[in-house]
């Protein structure tokens, strides 16, 4: 049984590795703000969204659409989603309370704890099915329909009754019977517990039988008339452990334990499997719970969201309207500037222009929208349409450490080398002021060579740069695949933070910024 609320045909594995560059992605795209908004302080939710969003990059269009429909159902029925989520959590926590601690490693105690837990799980499963019985009609997505159908067919009343019966039978208060063979050194091996068929005896009949057998062994008299009278089987070999013989009692209980070993294991593993089901359910629902959290917050600050149109991985297409940086919106808690773009068959985007003109924000909004779209979520835009990609890389200028120029440039090329080690042809790479830690000619040459190699492989490249030589180098080639964007600047030198199409300009308006920061200089 699998919930399959994130993938059509398999469970979500929370333990799976994150992309190798998760650190860079989180840092460069400022994802922490997004995750926090979705988790609302819940560590588990945080872990889930981090994993699902970062790994979303490997999803195909089918998975994206599958999740999208489920998410729509969630937005429609938040109460039911939250109820199921709570139910899963309660099952998991009750199981934890049953934790057996240090004395629990013996089959007998494993058996007893597992029975206990399984009785509890049976109740939770029944409750889950009740929800399915009541509410399945309100859900339209393929994912939920399948999930509820599974609950209703697999967890029937008869099945739950059978489980409970087996659990009751597994207390072995009537003794145990097992088959064994002679193995190495004539020791008993392959102990297999048999189903104990014998009827329960009243304790006094048991006592009489014990007494008769004991007598018979003592007197070596197997034809005792009393034994015949009580119909006691004497052809077998019988012996008794004295109640004073501590070693013997220990040995006997170990033997019993060995017999119970397999059954205890089977029950404990079944319990783990059901726990696994609840955990998967919890994980998969957690993602949607987190999405609901985000949805509510964006609604509050009036930012629009929409479901994106994912296009085939081999296409190169990008079109959006009102795309904004979701992290910026969440941090400032207000509406931020959105951008529009229509770029068919383009895979090189060079963004130049004013400092603090919104270039970095724009670059981040591209990466974020791509990640959100691919994890099956809504995107921060009025409209968004893009081909899916199989990896997102960020190569942002790092401010920290490295006083030495050569060291810093070295570090930049080192990170570039890592990216090239992991590159795939359907990747998206976002460069932010890369290779500027050297003089303009060298930086331009290296950046130029790298970008040329990348775009020839149809890799989608966004490059924010103030190196004029570099940008111009590509501009004068009039490449069909290239689009040049600029931070908008009005003639009165105010910035709109809008990114618009436009050729690279020689200066980056650093003068403006300088003048703004050192206003006294202007007066002089």
């Amino acid at each position, binding site marked *: 049984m699998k919930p399959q609320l994130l993938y059509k045909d398999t469970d979500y594995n929370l333990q799976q590795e994150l992309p190798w560059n998760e650190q860079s992605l989180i840092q460069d795209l400022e994802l922490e703000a997004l995750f926090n908004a979705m988790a609302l302080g819940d560590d588990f939710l945080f872990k889930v969204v981090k994993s699902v969003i970062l790994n979303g990059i490997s999803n195909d269009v089918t998975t994206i659409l599958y999740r999208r429909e489920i998410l729509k159902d969630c937005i429609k029925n938040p109460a039911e989603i939250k109820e199921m989520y709570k139910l899963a959590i309660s099952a998991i926590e009750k199981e934890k309370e049953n934790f057996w601690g240090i004395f629990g490693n013996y089959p007998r105690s494993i058996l007893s704890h597992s029975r206990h837990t399984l009785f509890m799980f049976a109740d939770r499963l029944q409750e889950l099915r009740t929800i399915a019985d009541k509410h399945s009609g309100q859900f339209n997505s393929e994912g939920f329909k399948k999930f509820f159908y599974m609950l209703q067919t697999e967890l029937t009343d008869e099945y739950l009754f059978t489980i409970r019966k087996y659990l009751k039978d597994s207390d072995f208060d009537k003794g145990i019977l097992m088959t064994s*063979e002679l193995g190495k050194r004539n020791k008993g091996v392959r102990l297999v517990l048999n189903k104990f068929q014998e009827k329960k005896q009243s304790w006094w009949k048991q006592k009489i039988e014990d007494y008769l057998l004991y007598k018979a062994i003592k007197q070596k008299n197997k034809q005792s008339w009393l034994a015949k009278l009580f119909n006691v089987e004497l052809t077998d070999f019988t012996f008794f452990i004295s109640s004073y013989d501590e070693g013997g009692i220990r040995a006997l209980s170990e033997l019993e334990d060995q017999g119970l070993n397999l059954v205890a294991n089977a029950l404990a593993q079944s319990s783990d499997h059901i726990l696994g089901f609840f955990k998967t359910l919890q994980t998969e629902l957690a993602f949607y719970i987190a999405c609901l959290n985000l949805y509510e917050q964006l609604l509050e600050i009036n930012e629009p969201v929409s479901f994106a149109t994912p296009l085939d991985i081999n296409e190169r297409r990008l079109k959006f309207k009102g795309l904004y940086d979701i992290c910026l919106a969440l941090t400032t808690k207000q509406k931020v500037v959105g951008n529009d773009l229509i770029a068919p068959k383009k895979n090189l985007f060079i963004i130049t222009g004013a400092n603090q003109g919104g270039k970095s924000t724009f670059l981040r909004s591209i990466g974020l929208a791509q990640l959100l779209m691919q994890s099956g979520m809504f995107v921060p835009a009025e409209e968004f349409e893009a081909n899916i990609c199989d990896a997102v890389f960020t190569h942002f200028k790092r401010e920290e450490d490295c006083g030495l120029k050569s060291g810093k440039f070295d570090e930049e090329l080192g990170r570039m080398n890592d990216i090239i080690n992991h590159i795939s042809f359907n990747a998206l790479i976002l460069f932010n002021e890369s290779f500027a830690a050297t003089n303009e000619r060298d930086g331009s040459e290296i950046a130029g060579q790298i970008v040329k190699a990348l775009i020839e492989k149809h890799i989608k490249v966004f490059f924010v740069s103030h190196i004029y030589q570099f940008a111009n180098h590509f501009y004068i080639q009039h490449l069909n695949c290239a689009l040049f964007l600029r931070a908008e600047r009005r003639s009165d030198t105010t910035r709109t933070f809008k990114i618009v199409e436009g050729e690279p300009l020689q200066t980056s308006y650093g003068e403006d910024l300088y003048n703004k920061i050192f206003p006294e200089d202007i007066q002089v």
Partner: protein
Amino acid sequence: MIFTGILFGNNERCTKNKTIETEMPPCFVDLNLDQIIHAITAPKEEYNLTPFYYTILNSIDDIVYRQKIMQDIENTLYHPIGRFAENMCEMRKYLVKSEKFYYKYQQESCFLDAADIYCDLIETLYSDLTNAKVKSQGFLLFTKYLANYLQSESFISLREEVKTLKTALSSIQYRIRINGLRVQVVYPNAETNYGNEIETVFAKFREGAVKDYLLKYSDPEDMNAVEAQILDGVAYLYPDIFSRLDIFCEKHPRYWDDTIVIFDREVQFYMAYIDYIENIRQSGLKFCYPEISDSDKKIHAFETFDLALAKKLVEENTTVVVNDFSLRDKERIMVVSGPNQGGKTTFARTFGQLHFLACLGLPVPGKEARLFLPDKIFTHFEKEENIKSLNGKLQEELIRIYTVLQQATPNSIVILNEIFNSTTLTDQIFLSKKIMEKLIHSDLLGVWVTFIDEIASFAEQTVSMVSAVDRENQSLRTYKIERKPANGLVYALSIARKYRLTYRFLKERLNK
């Protein structure tokens, strides 16, 4: 001819009833043979192989007997013999163990297993030997011996009894019913496995691997009292099988064959050496079976090397330098000179090792070799320790060399390394010349490491060998020992350069 052991041959020219040495030969330490033999025998300590390695053979027939056996092992028998040894080892373990058990039926079961291993290993060994198409006299005789043994009445009946008993015991099944403190052992009955039933009921939740909750029992081989009583119950249910087991153990307390047990130890002499040289061979160095003569003193070896040093260098992944030498016509003594640390002592050791190993009947380091069968190998290497006074040391040295010359025969080998260093150059030249005269006179074979050029070209019986330096950079040593006239001066300069003690170096250094 009958089989008399895998170490010593059986024809009339072979040495009969050879005494096995238990003392380490005196030349061992100087030649680093102590390290080599220790490293060879240490992994197989239980076989006590060192005495075999201390005992050199005195007849060519003995040597050839071993060389052929070694070739058989190297060609086809290494793995079969290895398996045989492992099985014998296992069997001995079982025998030791069987005595340690407290309960009779356990002792007997263990003893039966030992006998079972024995029967199987004999059969395996025989079929391996026949398949291997052995060529050596030693293995041919041994194979014949095994063939007779396998057909003997005693072996056939032993095997028969073991197999039937094993099958009977392992087919026994029974049930145990525990209720409170009452335990019953009863005949088996078709029953369902309750654990499986539970698994089926919960199968639908099965997803991937989960933790294993099976308690791992340490499963000591010994039984506790309850198990022993249950086993008594099993014996009660199957009295026939258990009484046959009792009878078997009484009837065959020593079921094995002594010749095979001795073979098991002695054959390890060869196996240990093969194991030792394995990684040296892997590194590309060669071993060969030397041609041995007890009369002709024209000897040579190509691409040979010091075994102890090679072992160390190969383990450190360093290249090993190989050397050639040859003595022609009247040549008897190689005089080795040249820069320090140029491989002179190593060369002298190589020469000694080569002859000693050849006398054990083993393959020796080198691509090809023709060697002499010495009656004894004498060595005298300069000793740093026990310096009482300069005079005392020289005296001591002379006494030792005198003893050597007294004992040495024309068939001996003498290896001298940097002797008489404790006196003046004039004395050294004088003494060296004197000793050299005596050596030449006795017509023995030898190597002499020295820096005294005068004795290098002493007579037609001496050959001058020089440790070479790199042609381009004279301070680089190649560790090659080449046949050429001694010339001290060039090397002195190169050593000085290496230690930066030339004029130019010193001027530079002193200016700092």
